[in-house]
């Protein structure tokens, strides 16, 4: 029996044994709506500057990786040192299919999602079987293996130079419009990811993730099926990161393993989540934007920016215990502040 009620600001869906209710509270949405409105106007304002639009899109792509990563690390209670493995799977699948079969981006998308699903399912048993530190090491090693494979099988993966000639996302005829539309697409995709993860973490699944993160054995004793929820969390977040790889491959038109697989990129992504505010979703977006801006701003220093960039990140990591998000809003006492445990001994 389906029953849908709507009273003023309260929304209720009653479907057999399943019940979902939602209250719309405008005062909590004010700040996020202002930020979203600003982000939507931004590409139109800077439509002339292609480099700024590219920077915005890069920042959004970083955010596309950071948002699911923040969810994953809380939801499986382990630290993932290799999110770029799934990024590379998505990117390489999209690039190879596009180059060899001349498929457009919307045709490669289903294949990319399927590949993400397959690898996510293959690797998710280790999120339950491997103890915390060993899981982190497994995820650390996987992208390095992928990188070696791109060098060894150079004819397929073009290890040194990377694949190029990937079909672009959108072709409007005018290069300027291409950049603007690309920026808007990345923005919309990022907001979709944000909406999904935010809704999930505010619902009962967020409580499950918090319980798994805090004390797995006790949660299991209370009737929570740990394995099922960890599998689901890991697989879905891996698929989301794979989609980020798909977007990056089609937007830039090329995809090189050497850009995305080494440890330096991993540290960049990890620090986006950690500096932004460990585990906070909005914090990871702020972290992603900050890192993208910092990277761009430091290029004027010349080759020494490769040293200064991680140095600044290290200083921020030390000095901001609550991340950049903590500067914006003092951590409220009763909010769940996840701690990611590496060793589950």
């Amino acid at each position, binding site marked *: 029996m389906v029953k849908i009620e709507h009273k003023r600001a309260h929304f209720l869906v009653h479907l057999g044994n399943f019940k979902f209710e939602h209250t719309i509270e405008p005062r909590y949405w004010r700040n996020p709506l202002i930020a979203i409105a600003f982000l939507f106007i931004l590409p139109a304002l800077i439509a002339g500057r292609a480099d700024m639009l590219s920077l915005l899109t890069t920042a959004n792509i970083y955010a596309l990786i950071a948002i699911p990563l923040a969810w994953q690390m809380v939801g499986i209670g382990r630290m993932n040192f290799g999110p770029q493995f799934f990024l590379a799977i998505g990117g390489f699948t999209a690039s190879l299919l596009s180059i060899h079969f001349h498929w457009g981006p919307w045709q490669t998308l289903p294949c990319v999602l399927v590949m993400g699903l397959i690898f996510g399912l293959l690797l998710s048993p280790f999120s339950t079987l491997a103890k915390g530190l*060993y899981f982190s090491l497994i995820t650390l090693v996987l992208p390095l*293996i992928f990188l070696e494979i791109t060098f060894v099988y150079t004819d397929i993966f073009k290890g040194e130079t990377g694949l190029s000639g990937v079909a672009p996302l959108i072709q409007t005829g005018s290069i300027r419009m291409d950049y603007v539309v690309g920026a808007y697409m990345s923005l919309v995709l990022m907001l979709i990811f944000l909406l999904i993860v935010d809704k999930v973490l505010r619902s009962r699944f967020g409580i499950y993730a918090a319980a798994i993160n805090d004390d797995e054995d006790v949660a299991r004793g209370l009737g929570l099926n740990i394995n099922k929820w960890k599998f689901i969390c890991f697989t879905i977040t891996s698929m989301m990161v794979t989609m980020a790889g798909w977007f990056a491959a089609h937007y830039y038109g090329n995809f090189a393993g050497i850009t995305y697989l080494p440890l330096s990129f991993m540290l960049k992504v990890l620090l986006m989540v950690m500096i932004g505010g460990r585990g906070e979703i909005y914090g990871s977006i702020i972290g992603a934007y900050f890192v993208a801006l910092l990277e761009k701003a430091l290029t004027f220093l010349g080759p020494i920016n490769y040293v200064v960039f991680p140095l600044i990140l290290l200083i921020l990591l030390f000095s901001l215990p609550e991340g950049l998000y903590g500067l914006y809003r003092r951590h409220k006492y009763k909010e769940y502040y996840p*701690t990611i445990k590496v060793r589950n001994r």
Partner: protein
Amino acid sequence: MLDTLQIILIYTFIFGSLYLLVTLGFTIICGVLRIFNLGYGITFLIAVYGVWIFTKELGFGLIPAILGMIILQCAFTLGVIYFPIVKRYAEKEELLLTSLLLVALIVEQAINYQYPVTAGVNIPTTIIPGSIKIGLTTIPIQMLVVAGIAIITTIAVLLFLLKTKIGLVIRAVSQDSESSQLMGANVNVVYAIAMILAVIPPTIAILTIAPVWSIDPQLGGPLLQIAILVSILGGLGNIKGTIMAAYIVGFVASAVAFLINPKLMNLAILVLVLIVLMFKPQGIARSESLW
């Protein structure tokens, strides 16, 4: 067939001893401090580039340069790694591992900026030049020297840990730091001593292998991978296991290099790490202590 086997055995001995020396420091840190030092690659970089700076920029001779580099090594380990990072984040492991990786990246990029690959860094520490022909292959004698030095260093470290009073305290702290504190051991001093002790084997390793190995700022990464593999295969923090695991990994590396394809050697090591991590993360040794 027999010749290939002979070559593989010789290289197993050489690689195995080298990997043992490289991993010894990592095992000591892992066993005593119970942390995973992902910044281990820095030790190698400071060793090589420290000597280079002392000889080229400051014009020291080789031996004073090595002494100066050792002082620099200890200062860096205590001043940058031990006090700010390890002591602050001993409980929060995600921050610990991330900051160690970050420091390793910063040092690597700084050295890359100052002395890129093309700078032609070389360390003239050849003890016995020339090469020797064993069976069908020609090996630089330096490599045999390295293998010999590796074994001597391992025996020296073991004698230190087994026969001296400080070694006994270190072993006690590695098994149970709280009980050792109750017995009066100053755990912080022991940790500092262990970190300095852990710096010595990799320094010796990279200095003696420098003439026959390519020196570039990225050499920390592969050596760290080897250290991780050997220490996990041998059981984290256990020297007996490390010794066994080093020769097993040496065997796999040389077998892959000579029987299949030398380009696959690094990949084979990585795949071996993955398999060990997935299916037998406790490693081969049984005990939870340093020896």
